[in-house]
């Protein structure tokens, strides 16, 4: 069997997904199941004086109505990702608000009924008396509740700026938007009377962490909580974190002693799941006359919404730690103030912190190039770290790890991107369009990513009765294809095809030590764990096979799923099923005390991340008549170290671009002046569709294998998104002849304002609020 790693293997999960055999959270149904509707705050900020549930309770078919009074006192959801030196204190989110509501959509009560219609009808009858308080809606307005104020940096920034020939300054804002999986959240929970435990279907992303939190909040042993693997219609960072509903639904199942189902609807989803991205940057770069960067400063206001959720303040930390990007920045100082506002609380969204910081930094570099009269590419090339400078340590920490940029060749990646752009004739395309009087622009961004976050992941591999290879991994299937990737990795240990491999992700009983799928980590970390476990099982297969074949272990080989004596092609060979049989209890080949079965557990630990990098290039056209921006061409060049499955890497990058174009041009959670969300449907929250997303050229580079893991792989989950806001902004500013834009989204109002075409209310909407 040829090596499976590196092949464009079709996705294993597609068979069930395309045939309608997938099982999503809401597909799991039980008899006697109660259906839940969450009653949410209709006001942005207020004091709750009374919640009257009698009318709702009196409805036929209503089983229970629950408010904070019915819960254990002051239950709050803890932080999963701590940033050293920060303390969210009283601002962790309660599972149900009691005295104060802080955003529209905050859970106040839960109605359980015999069906979802009755639950929604009854939820309307829960009477809320809330005395409205003034809503705080802007971070950095001067009247702020700052929940964290911290800095990251290194070097002598003061001297760098004092001695600089040129200083460029830019204010840049990024709008509130987030990951919007096509499947909203869903939870089905079955109650187990014998143990008092719960069987949970619908959790994704970090089942191990969620089980731990739930066990603590319910005050039960983790072993009575079983989170099952289900399919998920997209994750993007928002799905699968521990939200209030992740407590309320299991808690209700135990209270009612019956199965409970909750399916989020889209209107809820858009006010309930983590929002993200809203930041305002004030950047300064100190440069020598020739464009050499001497120092970089950034002062960031991060709008975190009403509470600190499971991500703590990791998103703005990632903004600061990753801001210098792939460049040689001798001195850097970043400060962020994380402010709370009366809007939906925030968390991570694919490329958290980096989409924002990359857009701000790259626009700053466009600006300094313009101010120095230099070519944008030349300025970047001059400042890129060279292979000889790697590994490059920045005296900062991020995600609790030391920031050491591992191997790489950044200038080569830039060359490869631009060579492809030249081959594709994009410069000529822009020139031709301009000759016809059209506003075309070419945009470029370079970015640094991070991936492969540890500290560990665990995988189990076993051989089953028909000689199949079974994997219980700690990753979760969010639609990204991780099952296929893990199957490819383990298949090579046995010389079999991926068709002989079964992968179960995210089941807390089968794999209690899983760390989940996030932070572009699963191929790298879970993959390395699977490889280790597979290797251990393969060793055992060879050992036991040698016993059966009456040969020395070093004389047998395992290839094509068969153990045979090396160099003796005609000799007797054992397939994996036969070796499995030899490992069964009672087998004459098992020695006394030797465990039965062919299985192994492996824990892969890594204390540093691996840093992928890339470039985005795009061509846009601006219509001065409407202010509309059309993305005509798009290219991503990305260093992935080693692509386990190039087709899936490309798919990840393309999907990222789709979201990046949405974030650059369309998607925004807007609020009115009283804090009412204005984007609670897909008519108002503008997701890009097939009509808005361009075809994407991919330059997939495997020029710099990662040194932090045995696969040499770098994560690929986020790089399609990281540079998108920056590249589109660069292209728009190029199209309209401005040195830099001042924020996202590049909506018609702000584009026309930058063009100087429209004055008046729309023109003032640089923040996108018309």
């Amino acid at each position, binding site marked *: 069997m040829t090596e499976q790693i590196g092949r464009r293997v079709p996705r294993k999960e597609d068979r069930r997904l395309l045939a309608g055999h997938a099982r999503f959270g809401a597909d799991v149904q039980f008899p006697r199941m109660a259906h839940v509707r969450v009653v949410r705050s209709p006001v942005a900020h207020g004091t709750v004086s009374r919640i009257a549930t009698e009318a709702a309770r009196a409805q036929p078919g209503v089983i229970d109505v629950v408010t904070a009074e019915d819960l254990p006192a002051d239950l709050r959801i803890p932080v999963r990702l701590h940033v050293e030196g920060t303390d969210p204190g009283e601002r962790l989110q309660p599972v149900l608000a009691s005295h104060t509501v802080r955003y529209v959509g905050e859970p106040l009560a839960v109605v359980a009924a015999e069906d979802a219609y009755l639950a929604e*009808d009854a939820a309307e009858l829960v009477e809320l008396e809330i005395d409205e308080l003034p809503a705080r809606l802007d971070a950095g307005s001067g009247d702020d509740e700052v929940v964290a104020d911290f800095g990251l940096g290194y070097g002598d920034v003061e001297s760098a700026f004092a001695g600089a020939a040129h200083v460029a300054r830019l204010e840049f804002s990024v709008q509130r938007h987030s990951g919007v999986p096509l499947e909203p959240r869903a939870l089905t929970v079955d109650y187990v009377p014998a143990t008092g435990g719960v069987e949970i279907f619908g959790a994704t992303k970090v089942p191990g962490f969620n089980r731990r939190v739930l066990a603590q909040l319910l005050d039960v042993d983790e072993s009575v909580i079983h989170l099952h693997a289900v399919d998920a219609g997209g994750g993007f960072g928002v799905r699968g974190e521990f939200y209030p509903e992740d407590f309320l639904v299991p808690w209700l199942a135990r209270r009612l002693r019956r199965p409970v189902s909750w399916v989020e*609807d889209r209107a809820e989803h858009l006010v309930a799941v983590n929002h993200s991205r809203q930041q305002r940057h004030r950047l300064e770069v100190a440069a020598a006359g020739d464009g050499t960067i001497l120092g970089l400063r950034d002062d960031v206001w991060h709008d975190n919404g009403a509470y600190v959720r499971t991500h703590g303040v990791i998103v703005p930390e990632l903004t600061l730690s990753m801001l210098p990007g792939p460049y040689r920045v001798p001195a850097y100082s970043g400060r962020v103030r994380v402010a709370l506002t009366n809007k939906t609380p925030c968390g991570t969204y694919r490329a958290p912190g980096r989409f924002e910081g990359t857009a701000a930094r790259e626009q700053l570099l466009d600006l300094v190039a313009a101010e120095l009269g230099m070519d944008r590419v030349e300025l970047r090339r001059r400042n890129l770290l060279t292979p000889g400078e790697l590994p490059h340590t920045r005296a900062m920490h991020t995600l609790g790890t030391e920031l050491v940029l591992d191997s790489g060749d950044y200038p080569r990646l830039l060359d490869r991107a631009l060579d492809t752009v030249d081959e594709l004739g994009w410069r000529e395309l822009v020139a031709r369009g301009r000759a016809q009087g059209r506003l075309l622009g070419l945009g470029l961004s370079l970015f640094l990513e991070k991936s492969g976050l540890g500290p560990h992941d665990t995988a189990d591999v076993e051989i089953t009765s028909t000689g199949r290879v079974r994997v219980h991994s700690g990753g979760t299937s969010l639609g990204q294809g991780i099952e296929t990737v893990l199957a490819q990795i383990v298949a090579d240990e046995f010389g079999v095809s991926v068709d002989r491999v079964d992968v179960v992700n995210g089941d807390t009983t089968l794999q209690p030590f899983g760390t989940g799928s996030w932070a572009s980590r699963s191929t790298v970390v879970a993959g390395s764990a699977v490889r280790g476990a597979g290797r251990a099982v393969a060793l055992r297969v060879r050992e036991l096979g040698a016993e059966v074949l009456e040969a020395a272990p070093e004389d047998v080989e395992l290839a094509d799923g068969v153990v045979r004596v090396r160099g003796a092609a005609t000799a007797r060979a054992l397939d994996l099923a036969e070796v499995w049989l030899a490992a069964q209890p009672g087998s004459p080949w098992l020695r006394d005390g030797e465990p039965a079965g062919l299985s192994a557990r492996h824990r892969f630990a890594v204390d540093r991340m691996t840093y992928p990098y890339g470039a985005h290039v795009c061509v846009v056209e601006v219509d001065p008549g*409407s202010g509309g921006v059309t993305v005509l061409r798009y290219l991503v060049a990305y260093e992935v170290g080693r692509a386990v499955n190039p087709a899936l890497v490309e798919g990840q990058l393309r999907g990222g671009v789709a979201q990046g174009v949405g974030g650059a041009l*369309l998607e925004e959670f807007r609020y009115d002046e009283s804090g009412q969300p204005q984007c609670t449907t897909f008519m108002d929250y503008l997701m890009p569709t097939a009509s*808005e997303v361009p075809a994407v050229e991919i330059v997939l580079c495997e020029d710099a294998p990662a040194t932090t893991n045995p696969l040499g792989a770098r994560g690929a989950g986020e790089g399609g998104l990281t540079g998108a806001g920056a590249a589109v902004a660069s292209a728009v500013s190029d199209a309209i002849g401005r040195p830099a834009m001042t924020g996202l989204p590049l909506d*018609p109002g702000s584009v026309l304002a930058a063009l100087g075409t429209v004055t008046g209310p729309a023109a003032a909407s640089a923040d996108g609020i*018309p």
Partner: protein
Amino acid sequence: MKPAPFEYHRAYTPKEVTELLLELGEDAKILAGGQSLVPMMNFRLARPTALVDINPVSGLDYIRRDGDVLRVGALTRHRSVELSTEPDVHNGFSVLPGAARWIGHFPIRSRGTVGGSIAHADPTAEWCLLARLYDAEIVVLGEHGTRTVPSDEWFTGFLTTAALPGELVLETRFRRPRRHGTLLEYARRRGDFAIAAVAVAFDITDNRCHDVSMVLGGVANEPLRVPEAEAYLEGAEPGERAWAEAARLAAEAVTPGTGPDDGDHGYRRHLVGTLARRALAEAQAGPAGPRPRGGAS
């Protein structure tokens, strides 16, 4: 996102529809294609106590030319107009198939109806704009039989019409066929409700514009005719200069207080100017003829 409780009734004849509506009272609603009503019910923005499903009613799905009048039955799906290759449609009313392509997305066009759109009276809806552009008459059936309402009396405000309780739209009669016509819209995404839309129709004889109509959508509570631009273009020589002046007049018609979103009128005004100029130029180039099925627009 589950609708509040409602009764469901099915009607088989127009008369049965009106009888049911009168019996069920003012909170009963007609269900045709359901492309606006059902989402509004799911959001509980609309809470009809009862629905009268008119899809089983036969004889309301047609496009018929009657001299200078194009009669479109209420249950005609958007998609039927879009795909029409009938010379009766394309000679004089070529705007209709072209305009249908702007309506939402494929499933919406397959299910939604012309009569439903006229009855719903969204100020950006294509059929509402064209009803005003072609001085259409709306034929409705009520308690006392049929009556015909001119389109300038039909649209009475945001999502409101001159329909009386119990009345059912039977037909829209588009009149005054003209050789040149276009409807253009702008939305941030293909298929969304237009931020603004402009429809124009006119004839050109002896290199002069005649019989000019211009309607704006999305800038007022109902489709807005622009008599200033129409008067200016009457007898004008077709061409960029005339189009630019007419577009300026169209943009001037967008005033604060006329739009659903007053704060945005500066942008809408600019957009209307753009769309009007482009629509006039496109219309001048002549009727496009039937578009290939599935072709790009």
